[in-house]
């Protein structure tokens, strides 16, 4: 992969989070944690730095407990396809939006 085709992650995340409003952010361990922290800490961020595969499920738990609050997904979803299976039962519109967001990334 050439340098030109690389995604400037820090800039991309900064741009996404600039419009976050009340979005809750759960990061996967590793790069997404660093990227979100680099934008500047926020009380609506929850950073995973381990427990690989838990970003999707933590997000689902939040969605179920706080269905009125917006949220944004993670990019460790491939580790946790099963987690999406657990969460994909359509009980909660925000949970669906959260999952859609995961898929779109």
């Amino acid at each position, binding site marked *: 992969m050439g340098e030109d085709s690389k995604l400037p992650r820090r800039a991309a995340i900064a741009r996404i989070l600039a419009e976050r409003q009340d979005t809750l952010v*759960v990061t996967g361990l590793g790069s997404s944690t660093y990227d979100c922290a680099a934008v500047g800490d926020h009380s609506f961020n*929850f950073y*995973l*730095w*381990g*427990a*690989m*595969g*838990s*970003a*999707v*499920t*933590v*997000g*689902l*738990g*939040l*969605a*179920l*407990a*706080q269905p009125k609050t917006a949220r944004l997904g993670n990019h460790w979803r491939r580790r*946790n396809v*099963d*987690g999406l*299976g*657990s*969460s994909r*039962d359509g009980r909660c519109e925000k949970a669906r939006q959260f999952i859609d967001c995961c898929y779109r990334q």
Partner: protein
Amino acid sequence: MRRAAREDRSVEMGGNRPVPTGHAHNWPNLVFEKLREFQVRHVTYVPDTGHAQLIELCQAADGMEPTVLTTEEEGIGILAGAWLGGERGVLLMQSSGVGNCINTLSLSKVCGFPLLIIVTMRGEWGELNPWQIPMGQIAAKSLQLAGVIVYEVTEPEAAAPTVEAAARICFNGGLAVAVLLSQRMLGTKLFKD
């Protein structure tokens, strides 16, 4: 089974009907009542015969949020998220799922989130299935090594009081606590049918 669970909803509603006590087969109702007492809302579970009655009670209960899992450690993440959202939950699983949870248990430990787990034991007491034995024999020790407080229950009468003690230490202390329900109280599956 489903019908029985629905008929027992009086328990969860605070109950106009008295809950029978001291009956060996009534432990799921009494455990369910304790979960309600401690405002447990999120019930994450892997389907399991030993937990079936408790799961059905939770599914039928107003205001409870059951989530069926594809693998046990997902429950730890969901309950962490629910806690961040201000709500309590419980993880129901069989001892064979304990090993799946080990790394993910770091989430509740590092963050100091409460985690209440109720485990039905296999491979522990007169087990017929040899595949259940390796994990069943190390389930309690594995949980303890991972920093989980373990309460073991061998008599059905002790199930609800133990869940109460576990819930108190869990939610007040921000700790992971597992209640292990022995095959001695659940009965050992003999596959005779």
